């Protein structure tokens, strides 16, 4: 079910079906260019495929259509159907055949069409992809990248707005990243594909069409977090689409003379605790935010680790601003589920002891 109502807004009056989007010419990316997040991933995929003939893409509708979000646009035409594979409709098989390809020395990049469709492939991810290197005592590597558009806020139908990342950060053997901007999208897809470990690569679907400057540099290692906005009063951790909201919150808070240090985690497994701890040691206060359900989400893990390691630095209990413990709700209710600027500021207030 393609559901991109907000990403590609439909005209507000009755009209003909949208006409075909012209195929973009391949992005050269020799210097810094302005690209949308989706195009930045596309450029990263293309570069990885140019660099290494063993990089192959697998997924539903990724070929002729270029994916329902057009992230793989034009790659079929450039690399052919052995390297850009429109698969039958079966996620377990997409992941499972990627395992076989990896056994043969390939570096498969699997696209899961929407977050909610990863679960039929869960067994192959958890019991095979994540473990084969361990199982074979290092003999077999699984350099598989699994791309997952994630998160809500696009007015979509059920299963199209989920944040399943915590299922994977609890799975030993996987690396997990989530990108928030075009530059990271580009740099991290290339690093993910280059990694000899399997990587879950989460794409913030409601930010696909936000443009940004992208240089061909790979930048900081995939495992590192990034301080987006330096601050002194509260540390606010976010990833994916919520980094933008957190940044807005920092601006809003500065109006009230509260200085928020926003950190974009980028890597969810492992978390870059060096950066997080340095910040918390400075601010003494922590807010973590994510769209996923609160209980068992990544926020709890981070709060636990920070409490373990920075106990004596904490001036207040860390605060979580998250989705509720509910299945993802219908579109008309999602604004009540998703952390927004107001809820983040409310969380900051609580971390500052201004409210309970």
């Amino acid at each position: 079910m393609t559901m991109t109502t907000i990403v590609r807004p439909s005209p507000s009056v009755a009209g003909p079906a949208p006409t075909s989007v012209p195929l973009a010419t391949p992005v050269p990316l020799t210097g810094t260019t302005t690209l949308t997040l989706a195009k930045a991933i596309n450029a990263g995929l293309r570069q990885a495929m140019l660099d290494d003939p063993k990089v192959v893409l697998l997924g539903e509708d990724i070929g002729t259509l270029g994916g329902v979000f057009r992230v793989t646009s034009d790659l079929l035409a450039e690399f052919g159907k052995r390297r850009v594979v429109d698969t039958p409709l079966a996620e377990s098989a997409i992941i499972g055949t990627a395992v076989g390809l990896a056994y043969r020395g390939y570096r498969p990049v699997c696209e899961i069409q929407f977050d909610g469709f990863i679960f039929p492939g869960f067994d192959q991810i958890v019991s095979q992809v994540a473990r084969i290197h361990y199982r074979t005592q290092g003999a077999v590597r699984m350099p598989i990248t699994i791309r997952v558009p994630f998160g809500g806020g696009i007015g979509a139908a059920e299963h199209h707005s989920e944040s399943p990342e915590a299922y994977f950060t609890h799975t030993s053997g996987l690396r997990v990243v989530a990108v928030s901007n075009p530059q990271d999208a580009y740099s991290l897809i290339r690093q993910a594909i280059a990694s000899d470990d399997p990587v879950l690569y989460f794409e913030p679907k409601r930010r696909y069409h936000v443009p940004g400057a992208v240089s061909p540099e790979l930048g900081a290692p995939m495992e590192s977090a990034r301080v987006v906005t330096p601050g002194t009063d509260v540390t606010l951790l976010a990833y994916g689409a919520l980094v933008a909201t957190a940044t807005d919150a920092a601006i809003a808070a500065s109006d009230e003379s509260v200085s928020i240090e926003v950190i974009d985690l980028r890597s969810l497994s492992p978390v870059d605790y060096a950066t997080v701890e340095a910040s918390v040691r400075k601010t003494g206060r922590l807010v973590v935010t994510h769209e996923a359900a609160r209980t068992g989400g990544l926020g709890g893990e981070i709060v636990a680790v920070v409490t373990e390691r920075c106990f004596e630095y904490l001036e207040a209990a860390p605060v979580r601003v998250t989705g509720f413990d509910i299945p993802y709700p219908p579109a008309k209710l999602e604004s009540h589920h998703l952390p927004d600027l107001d809820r983040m500021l409310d969380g900051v207030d609580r971390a500052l002891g201004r409210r309970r």
Partner: protein
Amino acid sequence: MLDILAGDIPATFLQLVTPDGVRQPDDRLDPWVEDVTGAHLVALYQDMVVVRRIDAEATALQRQGELGLWPPLLGQEAAQVGSARALRPDDFVFPSYRENAVAYCRGVAPADIVRVWRGNAQSGWDPYAFGMATPNIIIGAQTLHATGWAMGALADGVDSVAVTYFGDGATSQGDVNEALVFAASFQAPVVFFCQNNQWAISEPVGVQARVSIADRAPGFGIPSLRVDGNDVLAVMAATRIALDRARTGGGPTFIEAVTYRMGPHTTADDPTRYRPAGQLEEWAAKDPILRLRLLLDGLGLLTPEVEEQTRARADATAAVLRAGCIDMPDPEPLSVLAHVYTTPHAALDGQRANYAAYLAGFEQTSSDSTGGKA
């Protein structure tokens, strides 16, 4: 009947009305539609016209921003109406997301059909009120539910049947194949109704299968029928055969209804990116409504009164749909936290209390007229 159940490959293609509206006799199917009078044919025709109109209206509502998304069934009216009208009220339907004509035939109100697509709810209706589960978006998952329901019906000793709808793309999912395994193993009274509309979003059916979809089932020990899905009469006959087998202890049957998705996958899709030139025209010539018009006309049944009545019904249904859609109230904010559990759950109850207080804080603030979220 056994001679038309596909045990061999390839399966026979079953048709009763040709694309140009000629009724072909078929010894194997005819007995199953003997009782279908001219009045019945007119009723089927009207159903199809009305559901096509619902489809068009919903597409328009989506374009106008009243629906978030809509998955049109344009071209699949005969497959859905012909099968749904063969069911009894005590049968139970486990659909995918495209079975809006089936929902209509089960008696679901037009506005309730679009409720999900407006984003107001995840179910537009109470499944028990209509014998039809709510749309399942996880491809193929519902086929297992149907099989389990049918196992229950068998244990209960009733002759109700579970009918599950799914697409050609769905046949690649493990779940659908496991459903065939379980249905065969337990001889569950379930009908697997596959609408092969030639596409799974942008992927032609050839990506999923190199032989007929109908050929899949016999290898699981399940007889199958391959029917012209644009021929409402043949679809009804095939469905009745399958239902009869199920009711009389014959176990599961698989039906492939060969049809065509004449519109986009959903309103968010653009089929011009992948549809080969000429394909739409080729299938337009096999249009299910057109062919029934031709048949009725040949039978002298397409009177001006019928035409007028049909139009009036379609118009009225469209008006009801539009009004019901536009007037639909937004769900209450705190309903976001309702119905997760049947009984209290400490963690969630705490979250509800906090959120209620949080919302109340805004109301407070805004009645202080300092702004904020209302």
